[in-house]
C-alpha cells in the first residue's frame, strides 16, 4: 500500500514536471544574457570616473550621449537625430529626438543637454575628461528639441568627444545617485548591483529607439583568467567582450560551442621612454631601442600572436591610419651601432616599470631579454596601478615603462606641456594646432597622417602593438562589436539565434 502510494506520487511529480516543461517551451526562446568582465566598475557613473569598466557596463546600454561611437569607430547620431555645424566651425546645432524619457520618467530635452554639459565643465566637476568640455563657450536652447552648443574655437574632435561615456546625458534629479543607481535614457534600465559579483539590467519598455532583443542582462565580474575559462565552459557565462587570456582561446575555439572573434581595441601598447632623462633625450638611443625589439616575437610570446604591430601612436581603427610598422625593423646590429654612436657603454643599467596587466608583466620580461641582446641591462620593477600612477605618471620618475594607452585617438598627449614621457616637439605641436583648427575633413586626414609620421620619425616612445579584443561568445549569439573603438559592451543589437 505504502509502496503504491509512493509510486503514484512519483508518477504524479513526473507528469507535473513534464507538463511544466511543455508549458515552458514557448517561453524558452532565450532572451537573457550573462556577460563576463574581468574588472568590476568602481561606481556606475561614466561622468565621474575614468575606469573603462564603467563604460563597459553602462555605455549605450544605460546611458547615451548626443552623439555615439558605433562599433566601427564612426560618430553617429545618438540622442541628437542630426546636427549642423556653422561655417566658422564654432556653432553646433543639434536636433534632439523627441519622446525620449529617462528610466525614471524624466523627459529628455535641451534643458538636460544644458545641465549635463554644464555639470561636466563646472568648477566642482569631477569629470575625468573635463578637457573635452573645455572648448564649450555656451549652450543655448532656442526650443526644447534644439540645442546650440557654441565653442570658443573650432574643435575637429568635438563630436567624437561628445560620443564618449564622459559626455552622456544625465538628469538633474538623478545625477547624484548615478554612481550606485544609474538612470539614463538607454535601452536597458539598471535593476541591481550585487557588489563584488554582478550588475543586472532589464529591457527598458519605453525606449525611444528600436527595442533591444534581450530582456535581461547580467554583467558578471570574474577577475581570474582560469576561473573565467571555467565559467564559460560550465555555461555560467555566455560571453566575454574581451577575454583575459589569449592562451586559452585555442581550447575555447576547439570546443565548438563558442565563437572566438579577434578584433582590435584602441590600446596602443608602447615602451614609453622618459624623454627628459638621459640618454633617452638622444634620438639615436630611442631609435636603437626600436630596432632592438622584435615586435613580432613579443606579440607571439605575450599575446599568442594576436595584436597588430604599429609604428606610431595610432591604430588601424582610427581615421587616416597609415601603416608605419616597418619604420624600425628588427635589427640588433643596427641597434648596437646606434647605441655605440650615442656613447652608451655595454652593460648600461636601466629600469623598466611594469604595471599589473599581463601584457606589461609578461611583455617586460621579453623586452628585457631583447635589450640584453644589444648589451643593455634592464631591471624590471613591478608596480601596482596606484604606485605606477604616482611614480611614473604623476612624478615622471622612471626610465622606461610598458603601458597600453587605451584612450581613442589620443594624439593630443604628444602636444601637452607636461606629460609623463616628456616629449617636446614644436613641429608636432604646430601640426596638432593646425589639425584642431581645421574644418575641412580632407585637411584633417592629411594632418592626422602627418602627425603619425612625425611621431614615427621622432620615436619618443617605442610603438609596439595594438591590444587585441578577444571576443568569445556562445556561437548562437550575434550582434556583438568586433572591435572596441571605445570601451563598451553595446548590447542593443545582441540576440540569441537558432
Amino acid at each position, binding site marked *: 500500500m505504502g509502496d503504491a502510494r509512493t509510486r503514484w506520487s512519483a508518477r504524479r511529480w513526473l507528469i507535473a514536471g513534464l507538463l511544466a516543461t511543455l508549458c515552458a517551451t514557448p517561453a524558452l526562446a532565450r532572451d537573457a544574457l550573462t556577460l563576463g568582465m574581468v574588472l568590476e566598475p568602481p561606481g556606475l557613473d561614466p561622468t565621474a570616473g*575614468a575606469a573603462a569598466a564603467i563604460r563597459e557596463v553602462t555605455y549605450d546600454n544605460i546611458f547615451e550621449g548626443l552623439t555615439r561611437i558605433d562599433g566601427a569607430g564612426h560618430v553617429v547620431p545618438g540622442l541628437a537625430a542630426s546636427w549642423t555645424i556653422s561655417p566658422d566651425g564654432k556653432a553646433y546645432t543639434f536636433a534632439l529626438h523627441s519622446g525620449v524619457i529617462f528610466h525614471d520618467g524624466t523627459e529628455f530635452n535641451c534643458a538636460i543637454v544644458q545641465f549635463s554639459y554644464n555639470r561636466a565643465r563646472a568648477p566642482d566637476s*569631477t569629470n575625468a575628461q*573635463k578637457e573635452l568640455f573645455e572648448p564649450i563657450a555656451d549652450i543655448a536652447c532656442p526650443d526644447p528639441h534644439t540645442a546650440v552648443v557654441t565653442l570658443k574655437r573650432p574643435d575637429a574632435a568635438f563630436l567624437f568627444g561628445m560620443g564618449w561615456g564622459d559626455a552622456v546625458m544625465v538628469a538633474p534629479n538623478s545625477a547624484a545617485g548615478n554612481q550606485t543607481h544609474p538612470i539614463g535614457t538607454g535601452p536597458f534600465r539598471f535593476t541591481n548591483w550585487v557588489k563584488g559579483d*554582478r550588475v543586472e539590467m532589464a529591457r527598458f519598455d519605453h525606449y525611444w529607439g528600436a527595442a533591444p532583443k534581450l530582456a535581461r542582462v547580467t554583467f558578471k565580474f570574474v577577475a581570474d583568467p582560469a*576561473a573565467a575559462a*571555467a565559467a564559460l565552459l*560550465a555555461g555560467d557565462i555566455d560571453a566575454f567582450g574581451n577575454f583575459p587570456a589569449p592562451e586559452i582561446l585555442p581550447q575555447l575555439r576547439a570546443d565548438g560551442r563558442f565563437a572566438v572573434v579577434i578584433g582590435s581595441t584602441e590600446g596602443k601598447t608602447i615602451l614609453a621612454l622618459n624623454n627628459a632623462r638621459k640618454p633617452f633625450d638622444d634620438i639615436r638611443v630611442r631609435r636603437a631601442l626600436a630596432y632592438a625589439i622584435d615586435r613580432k616575437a613579443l606579440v607571439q610570446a605575450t599575446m599568442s600572436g594576436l595584436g597588430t604591430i604599429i609604428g606610431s601612436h595610432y591604430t588601424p581603427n582610427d581615421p587616416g591610419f597609415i601603416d608605419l610598422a616597418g619604420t624600425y625593423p628588427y635589427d640588433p646590429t643596427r641597434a648596437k651601432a646606434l647605441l655605440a654612436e650615442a656613447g652608451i657603454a655595454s652593460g648600461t643599467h636601466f629600469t623598466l616599470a611594469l604595471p*599589473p596587466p599581463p601584457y606589461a608583466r609578461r611583455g617586460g620580461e621579453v623586452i628585457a631579454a631583447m635589450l640584453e641582446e644589444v648589451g643593455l641591462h634592464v631591471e624590471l620593477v613591478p608596480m601596482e596601478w*596606484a*604606485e605606477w600612477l604616482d611614480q611614473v605618471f604623476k612624478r615622471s620618475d622612471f626610465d622606461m615603462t610598458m603601458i597600453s594607452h587605451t584612450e581613442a585617438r589620443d594624439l593630443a598627449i604628444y602636444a601637452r606641456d607636461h606629460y609623463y614621457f616628456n616629449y617636446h616637439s614644436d613641429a608636432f605641436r604646430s601640426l596638432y594646432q593646425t589639425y584642431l583648427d581645421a574644418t575641412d575633413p580632407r585637411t584633417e586626414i592629411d594632418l592626422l597622417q602627418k602627425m603619425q609620421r612625425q611621431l614615427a620619425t621622432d620615436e619618443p616612445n617605442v610603438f609596439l602593438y595594438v591590444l587585441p579584443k578577444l571576443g568569445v561568445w556562445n556561437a548562437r549569439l550575434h550582434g556583438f562589436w568586433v572591435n572596441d573603438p571605445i570601451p563598451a559592451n553595446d548590447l542593443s543589437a545582441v540576440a540569441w539565434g537558432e
Partner: protein
Amino acid sequence: MLRFLAGRLLALALTLLAAAALIFLVLEVLPGDPAALILGVNARPDTLATLHHQLGLDRPAALRFPLWIFGLLRGDFGESYTYHAPVAGLIADRVMVSLPLALLALALSTTLAIPVGVFAAARRRRIGDTLAMAVAQLGVAVPNFWLGLLLILLFAVKLAWLPASGFGGWSGGIWHGLRSLILPALALALPQAAILARVTRSAVLETLGEDYLRTALAKGLSRNAALWRHAVPNALIPVFTILGLQFSFLLAGTIIIENVFTLPGLGRLIFQAIAGRDLIVVQDLVVLLAGSVIVVNFAVDIAYVLVDPRLRQSGPR
C-alpha cells in the same frame, strides 16, 4: 574569572587600536592617490583637487586618524571611495559570504581530520595509517588555489553539478547560496584537514603512551573504549590550538580562494580595496579581521578551560 575577562577585553581593545594605527600608517606611507586612480590619466589638477576635497583627503592625517577611530566607536565605518556606499553595508553583505564559507570549511576540515587522525593513531604503522598519512602529506603539499581549479574542472566543467564561480545569494534559499560555497569550502578545507589530521594523530599517539591509558587498559577497558574515553579527550588541547591558528589561515585563504571562485566575500573586497586604494575600506576590514582573530583566540582559551578540568579548578592564570 571576571578579572580574567576584564584583562582580556582590555588587551583586545589595545591590540585593535594598535592594528588600526599600524594599517593607517602603512596606507599613509604607501604610494598612490585614490583620486588619481578614480580619475585616470587625463584628469586635470583642479579636478583632482575637487575630488580630494570631496573624499576628505585634503585634511591632514593627524586629523583623519582620530576622526576615523571615533567614527568606528560610534559605529560609523565611513563610505567607500569606489562603491560610493557605506562600508558597514558592504562588509555586512560580504560577511554573509565569507563567514558561512569559513565555517563550512572549518566544519568540513574538523569532521574529516579528527576521525582520520584518531584512526591513523589507533592503527599506527599499519597499512591504514600509512595510507591516511600519505594522503595527508599530499594534502599539506597541495596549494588550495590549485586544488580549487581542479575541483572546478571536475565538478563544474565536467560534471556540471555545481557552479564554477560566483555566488547565487541567499535570497533564493539556503541551497541556492550553499551550492556556490561547497567547492571553495572543500578547496579551503582539504589542505587544512590534512594538517589537522597529522596533528590529531601525533597528539593521540602521545596520549596512547601515557600511564593512565595503560591503567585503563589494565582495568579491563577495551582498546576502543580507552581510545575514545581517555586518549582522544586528552589529545584535544593541541588540536584546539591548531584549530584556532587555522582560523587565521582560513581568513587569509579566503582572499585567494574567493578570487579563484570569484566569490564576493571579504577576501575579495580587501584585495580590490588595496588595489583601488579604497583606504577606508582597507582600514575597516583590517580592524575587523584583526578583531575576529583576537576573538577566536579568546574562544580557544575558553575552550581549553572546558576540555581541561584542571584549568577549570585552579582558574585560568
